[in-house]
């Protein structure tokens, strides 16, 4: 069913004509606002001195918390995250106030000259410090299935350990940007955001104006990855307060260094675990104590923690399971959504435990995995039934490659002392749906025009995942109008309102389904009119009308669809349709009971990676990758493949190259010269990706499944392959900690050496 349909805006992008916010022609009188960021991690604000910046030619005005006409809050899950703090700054990089100037350069220069005095306080920076001070966000999450005590007693082996995952910077190519334009009544907001309705609500409250006077309009983002889910609210609010004050259009755009310093990233997680299993590798019991560093404000830390918890058993059935998870409040920038949303952290813990079991039993980790994989009908620790598991079939498919590559690895390692190859396999079972049930809703408005063209508005934000292309395809297939005649509109809160963020891999499921509903209704109307025309024109009574490639067909006769639309309008048929979709079956995850049916379905897949590691320099090279990714169906193979390869490389980056370095709470790897995301040279020479079309009925629109986040987890196989290479069949654990930078790899090699000497 997958068609070869190019990116709907491919030509615009390839010719440089596509417009991101700062590419839009400047409005007359457009001015620029730039925040002044806190340079302490925690402290009382004693004095803000604008005098030097006020002297700069081009300075227009300044804004502080006193200029906020409404509520000083951008927190959504919980109030208390201010636009500008009134008394105390809570993290290094927090915007404290801002300056407005005639151009971007001057605004930055003025911001730099603002002097702020603080009475510094001792910050809480780490998870350990937070635990000591009892500094937590609520609620704590718990899962308790079976009886772990009994499970441990019955286990032949019990292991314990500590694990941690690193922070990751989104590094979307387009930094946080927003333009606000005052209208005769209200404001037009153009943010680079995944959450238009959230922005609308925040700005209405911050400016103290009704929500119907705030229009948010978003055409596209230059990358999001979760970094534009909650982060943009604060910057949109600053821009809006500036525009409110000077009554002119205002733009804000962060420089890269400030963006990395000030905005939220992927949470650092730590876990303590205890796992019981038998000598055949069958896991009997698993107990976790999980903590995340949530930063200064709660942001999305609780739902992120929840998804971690709901993926902390990954693809394995564990009879007795107990878990306690807590998000810590510290004085780092808030941590936020990032592709996978806690899932990758949970999966990393489980996969690390599997590797450790294999090491303990001296078995191939592949065997441990196979022994414990979910089967159809199994229930997760939180009680949701896995209606069908494709894990067994995926393992069968990938096993020959794994065996062949493993042999190559072993042969190489026999011959080499200073360089070692390594291999690892990572399966995935990723739940699709927002774990907050209320957010699982989609919208679409379709308008047909008499020249046969279509306008589609829907609730998904285009950020490169090509929700636009795919929604256009769904509409095209349903109405029979070709994609070239379909225009996907910007997301505009005046056309589509009360939208959940574009997140959780759900954009096509939710909005594609809504678009399908709208399109189906329009098609019925068109058919009714087409029947009339066939009768009048050709005197045939059509039972069934085929509609494709802009033409209606019946018994060998053809009528262009545009003619039908024209006639329908004349016949007073409604040629526009607004529809709504809500995901069925799901429930919220009950935080108290630790139970729920939060996911509509699961996505399955498996990845094998092979690396070569230099034991002297600690460098590695990713050599080969094979991924088999299960989908119910694919409507655009290229888009799906692009999501898989992009997510895999991003996942690899998270656990290997990308090293977010802080010095006493101050982010110091804040530019691409120090924070290294993968380049084209880091991708494997053998990069084999296969779509396994399962035809699963537990799927969404046209049998497709959410594709944005699940493949991120495949990247973990690279980390485990590096660990495998270093350990080269030894029984001892190198304790390699991610990210696998040369420094951490050498550290792990030394750990092994020490253990060997003992």
């Amino acid at each position, binding site marked *: 069913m997958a068609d070869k349909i190019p990116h709907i805006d491919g030509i615009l992008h390839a*010719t440089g004509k596509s417009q*991101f916010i700062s590419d839009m022609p400047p409005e007359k009188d457009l001015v620029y606002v730039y925040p002044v960021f806190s340079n302490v991690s925690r402290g009382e604000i004693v004095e803000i001195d604008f005098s030097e910046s006020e002297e700069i030619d081009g300075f227009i005005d300044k804004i502080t918390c006193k200029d906020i006409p409404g509520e000083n809050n951008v927190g959504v899950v919980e109030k208390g995250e201010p636009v500008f703090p009134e008394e105390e700054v809570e993290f290094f990089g927090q915007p404290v106030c801002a300056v407005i100037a005639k151009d971007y350069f001057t605004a930055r220069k003025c911001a730099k000259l603002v002097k702020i005095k603080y009475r510094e306080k001792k910050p809480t920076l780490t998870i350990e410090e937070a635990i000591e001070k009892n500094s937590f966000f609520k609620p704590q999450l718990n899962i308790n299935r079976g009886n772990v005590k009994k499970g441990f007693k019955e286990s032949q082996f019990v292991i314990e350990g500590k694990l941690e995952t690193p922070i990751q910077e*989104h590094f979307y*190519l387009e930094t946080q940007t927003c333009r606000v334009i005052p209208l005769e009544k209200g404001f037009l907001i153009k943010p680079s955001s995944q959450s238009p309705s959230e922005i609308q609500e925040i700005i209405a409250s911050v400016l103290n104006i009704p929500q119907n006077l705030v229009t948010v309009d978003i055409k596209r*983002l230059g990358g999001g990855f979760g970094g534009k889910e909650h982060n943009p609210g604060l910057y949109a609010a600053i821009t809006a307060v500036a525009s409110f004050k000077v009554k002119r259009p205002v733009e804000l755009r962060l420089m*890269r260094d400030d963006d990395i310093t000030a905005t939220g990233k992927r949470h650092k997680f730590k876990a303590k675990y205890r796992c019981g299993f038998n000598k055949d590798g069958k896991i009997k019991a698993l107990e976790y104590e999980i903590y995340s560093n949530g930063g200064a404000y709660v942001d999305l830390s609780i739902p992120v923690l929840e998804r971690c918890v709901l993926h902390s058993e990954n693809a394995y059935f564990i009879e007795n399971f107990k878990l306690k998870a807590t998000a810590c409040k510290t004085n780092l920038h808030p941590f936020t959504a990032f592709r996978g949303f806690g899932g990758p952290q949970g999966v990393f813990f489980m996969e690390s435990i599997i590797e450790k079991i294999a090491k303990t039993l001296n078995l191939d980790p592949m065997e441990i995995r196979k022994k414990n994989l979910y089967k159809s009908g199994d229930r997760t620790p939180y009680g949701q039934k896995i209606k069908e598991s494709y894990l067994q079939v995926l393992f069968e498919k990938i096993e020959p490659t794994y065996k062949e590559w493993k042999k190559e690895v072993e042969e190489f390692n026999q011959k080499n002392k200073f360089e070692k190859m390594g291999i690892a396999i990572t399966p995935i079972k990723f739940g699709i749906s927002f774990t907050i049930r209320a957010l699982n809703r989609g919208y679409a408005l379709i308008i047909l025009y008499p020249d046969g063209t279509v306008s589609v508005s829907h609730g998904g934000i285009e950020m490169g995942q090509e929700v636009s292309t795919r929604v256009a395809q769904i509409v095209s297939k349903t109405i029979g109008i070709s994609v070239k005649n379909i225009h996907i509109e910007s997301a505009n809160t005046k056309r589509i309102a009360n939208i959940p963020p574009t997140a959780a891999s759900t954009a096509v499921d939710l909005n594609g389904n809504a678009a399908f509903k709208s399109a189906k209704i329009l098609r019925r109307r068109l058919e009714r009119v087409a029947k009339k025309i066939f009768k009048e024109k050709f005197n045939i009574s059509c039972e069934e009308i085929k509609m494709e490639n802009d033409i209606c067909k019946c018994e060998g006769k053809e009528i262009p669809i545009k003619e039908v639309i024209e006639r329908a309008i004349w016949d007073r048929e409604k040629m526009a349709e607004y529809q709504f979709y809500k995901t069925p079956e799901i429930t919220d995850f009950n935080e108290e009971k630790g139970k729920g049916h939060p996911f509509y379905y699961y996505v399955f897949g498996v990845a094998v990676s092979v690396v070569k590691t230099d034991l*002297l320099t600690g460098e590695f090279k990713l050599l080969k990758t094979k991924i088999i990714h299960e989908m119910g169906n694919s409507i655009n193979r290229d888009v799906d493949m*692009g999501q898989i390869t992009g997510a895999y490389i991003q996942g690899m980056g998270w656990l290997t190259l990308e090293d977010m370095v802080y010095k006493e709470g101050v982010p110091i790897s804040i530019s691409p010269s120090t924070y290294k995301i993968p380049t*084209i040279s880091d991708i494997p020479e053998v990069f084999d990706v296969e779509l396994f079309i399962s035809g699963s009925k537990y799927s969404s629109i046209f049998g497709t499944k959410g594709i944005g986040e699940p493949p991120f987890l495949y990247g973990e196989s690279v980390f485990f392959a590096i660990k495998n290479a270093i350990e080269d069949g030894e029984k001892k654990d190198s304790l390699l900690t991610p990210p696998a930078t040369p420094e951490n790899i050498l550290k792990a090699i030394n750990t092994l050496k020490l253990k060997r000497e003992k």
Partner: protein
Amino acid sequence: MLEKESLNFFLNGREVNLDVEKIKSFTLLDLLRNELHLTGVKRGCSEGDCGACTVVIGEYSPIYEKVIYKTITSCIYPLFKVDGKHVITIEGIEENGNLHPIQKSFIDHHAIQCGFCTPGMIMSLFGLFLENPSPSEKEITKALSGNLCRCTGYKTIKEAALDINGEDFQIPSHVKKVEEKIYERYNLEKGKTKKFRLNKIFPFREYISPHSLKDLFREISKGNYKIINGGSDLFVGINKLSLEFDGLIDISRIEELNFIHIDGKRIEFGAGITFHELLEKLKEFKHIFEIIGSNQIRKVGTMGGNIANGSPIADGAVFLLSMDAILTLEKKDGKRVVPLKEFYQGYKKFDLKEGEIISKIEFTIPEGKISYLKTSKRKEVDIASVNSSLVIDESNGKIRDVKISFGGVYPYPFRIEKGERFLKGKNLEEKNIYELAKLCKEEVAPISDVRGSKTFRKELVYNHILKHFLNLFPHIFGERNGG
């Protein structure tokens, strides 16, 4: 002298004349985006590291004696450098409304997701194909290593690039048409110093571009003036508002600094030679020069700049140290010669007097074998944690001579002479190498920073020594030693 009242260059085949007084931008990117409203070129990082702002510059090269094309990052390209040159942007590669084959290939291969990096990627390839109509896969990845994409995982980008047939590659007709005019301008301005007096909002008030050393020394004597060539380091600081000057003196046009002489093993080149030119002319060291910066940076960055920047980790300097390179330093009243290893005196401190510049670098390719290593978090376009270069002359298992240089482990690029003395005359055998590694590790004094801890760096010194010998003489480490 040419007191320039207007900035004149060619943009996508058309002549542009801008009144210097009215210009508000100091980088090419800002001018293109903010003043000429060509927004296909994107701003990603403002430090030349993401490639979203990539454009191609056509300029006359006295080295190649023709108009050459350089792929550069416009966010750190000093605006006034474009005077007399041709700037080609994403808006200038379509012809008669037809997509360029590179653009078409990106669309066909679905090599586009969010689209923000796309114009830069395409321009990097456009620049590559202008130079080399049938690049290999490796040349393609090298050319694109300076362009970051966070969406695609690069697989489709690579496929799109590999699918561009050299025969399909079209050079837009305006490109050739402008070449003659560029050459004319070059001749017209030959021997003349160009001077731009700038608006007071600029972080520098003057931009001066002399054509001869004599004219340079006339300008150099005053105030807070900074000398740049490619400007690829300084403009990062200027963009970040951390630097201001009375003026900048651009030495990239100075004829005396733009030459390469190769006479057998004897290499002499002007300090204005770029890394790209070096790797083209000195093919045997291509693999070393190629790990410096990105393609875009190698097109503007010079060896002179790499040395005079004084970074303790400068890739070029570490290499040259092991070559026993000699610098010629010049100022108004004469020149002197200083060996590179005596040039450095402390962190960012060196033997360069007021008003003096590095004019020439020379070395003789030594007898024996050369090994160069760079360890960094990422293979491409990264600054090393530690880099090192080893030159060794050995015969029949006896070491006649050895030179060992390291970067990132001392306040400046550093020759470990104690290690060299130890090894000279010794037998080429495993235990001596381990001994040497230990000795070198003790000689260095690294610090901890964002690129690695002190302990890690010390360990790398030890391991680099082993690795160099493993690269050059695998047999001394026994059987299980190499593939």
